[in-house]
């Protein structure tokens, strides 16, 4: 009883107008940000946040909702980055079309990777994805056509939306990455409310029970991987066009796969806002330490990872639901307190005494 009252108190009283207002403010902030913060670093920072939030959100579809822990998502990122770059270098194909081809190739990869690996459960699957990722990295490193270990430079073209290259400003990159994040988040939002979304969660919770309810679990795992991989590949093309240089160590390393899922895990898997929250916390942390500790050379680069690692251990042990879970816990504590105050006010003079929380 108290609980229900409590839930209504904050979430719903504040909702409607509150939410609309909050949305408007957020939209205005996001759209106006590059005009307020005109320096390259704040813009670069936000672009990284959007990119990694999008990648983590994409990972979240497979890992968070469907429960298949992939530690090899860099494969898809690499497919996106290499496909568009190779097509641009050798056949002068627009990176936008390259992105589309990259997505198509990521779907082929989904079938190749997902078909065999989805028979594996839990830890076996996670290790298999590491193996797939490492195989891809070794292959590309030894493939001269794709630049080998040296990597590929994206040819410099006149800047513009058509060429997907901007040399004098980061603002277009800002909006494109925002759009990517928006697209994958909207997709997730729809998935959450669709049959596929329910099925993903059922598969995560108990694959055998899911099958007994008529869910073809392999098909749905493949679907989750396909959506997840496609957005990750788009992120790869974006990265190539943003940095204009790719090599196996930057777009195919295991560490990239790891960071993608760390962002999601830290924020809170299986939730819409978790990956975004995770990126908001982790990316500034790593970019910040990178800048302030740049003088220390290679050592400085590791500092963010020390914090990452420690955070992940602490989170796994104390709050496996991530920052979102932490936030919800705080919110619940606040709500209960508010509702108590209300109950007390409503019942002033009343005789009945009720115990705390009917749950």
């Amino acid at each position: 009883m108290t609980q229900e009252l409590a839930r209504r108190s904050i979430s719903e009283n504040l909702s409607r107008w509150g939410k609309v207002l909050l949305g408007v403010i957020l939209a205005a902030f996001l759209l106006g940000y590059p005009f307020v913060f005109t320096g390259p670093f704040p813009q670069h920072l936000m672009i990284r946040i959007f990119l990694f939030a999008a990648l983590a959100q994409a990972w979240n579809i497979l890992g968070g909702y469907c429960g298949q822990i992939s530690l090899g998502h860099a494969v898809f990122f690499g497919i996106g980055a290499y496909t568009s770059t190779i097509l641009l270098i050798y056949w002068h194909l627009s990176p936008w079309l390259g992105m589309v081809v990259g997505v198509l190739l990521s779907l082929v990869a989904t079938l190749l990777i997902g078909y065999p690996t989805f028979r594996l459960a839990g830890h076996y699957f996670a290790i298999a994805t590491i193996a797939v990722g490492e195989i891809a990295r070794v292959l590309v490193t030894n493939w001269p056509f794709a630049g080998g270990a040296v990597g590929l430079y994206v040819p410099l073209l006149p800047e513009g939306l058509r060429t997907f290259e901007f040399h004098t400003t980061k603002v277009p990159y800002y909006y494109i990455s925002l759009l990517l994040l928006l697209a994958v988040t909207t997709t997730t939002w729809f998935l959450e409310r669709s049959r596929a979304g329910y099925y993903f969660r059922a598969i995560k919770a108990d694959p055998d029970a899911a099958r007994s309810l008529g869910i073809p679990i392999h098909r749905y795992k493949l679907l989750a991987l396909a959506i997840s991989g496609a957005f990750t590949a788009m992120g790869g093309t974006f990265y190539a066009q943003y940095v204009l240089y790719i090599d196996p160590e930057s777009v195919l390393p295991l560490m990239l796969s790891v960071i993608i899922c760390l962002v999601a895990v830290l924020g809170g898997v299986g939730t819409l806002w978790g990956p975004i929250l995770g990126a908001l916390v982790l990316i500034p942390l790593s970019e910040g330490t990178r800048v302030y500790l740049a003088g220390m050379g290679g050592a400085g680069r590791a500092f963010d990872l020390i914090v990452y690692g420690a955070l992940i251990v602490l989170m796994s042990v104390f709050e496996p639901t991530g920052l979102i879970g932490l936030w919800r816990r705080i919110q619940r504590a606040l709500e209960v307190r508010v509702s108590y105050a209300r109950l007390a006010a409503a019942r002033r003079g009343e005789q009945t005494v009720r115990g705390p929380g009917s749950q």
Partner: protein
Amino acid sequence: MPALLRLEEVSKRFGGLVANDRISLEVQEGEILGLIGPNGAGKTTLFHCISGFYTPDSGRIFLRGQEITGKSPEEIAQHGIARTFQIVRIFKDLTVLDNTIVGALLRTRSVQEAKKKAVQILEFTGLKDKMDRLAAHLTIADKKRLELSRALATDPVLLLLDETMAGLNPQEIKEAVDLIRAIRERGITVFVVEHVMEAIMTVCDRIIVLDYGRKIADDVPANIATNEEVIKAYLGERYHVAG
């Protein structure tokens, strides 16, 4: 009238152990059929064979005359056989309503429609008041009830219940018996594995007894209670347990 479900000489072996030994049986449309037997008699194995989690080593299984032997669990669910598990397997992190919606989505793509149906079913099974709770937070009795609701939501023609009453108190058992009867009233055939004898004797129209993987009796409850071979099988178990 042809049987709803027919098993022809179904066998399942695990290494040297014959869990199901040439079992033939029929489930008639609209009946409540019981499956009993001492521990390890092969009841759950048989349910696994029917629901597609095991492929029988030999023998055939027909649903309404159509062969379903060796089909996958998801295909068999689509054909209209729903089941519960011996150890409850609800989706713990989902709410009661969402659990049931997952079941209902088998027959509709629309989440809205599935939700409507899920609410109806939860009303029928008496869980509507608790539909916003997380499944993990339910009592054992309610968890079993939820698993049953979820199975019902798939619109089955045949419902396999694997020990739904184990671990319930007498009051809860009575409620479960009433619920099984009400399910039959909805036109769903029920096939139950049960250890709680009083319950199964009152609720079933007919009972099949397994012992060491073989079918040793197939009769109305009154006759089962006096069947010599059945008594022997159970006495054996009792001695075994005592020793």
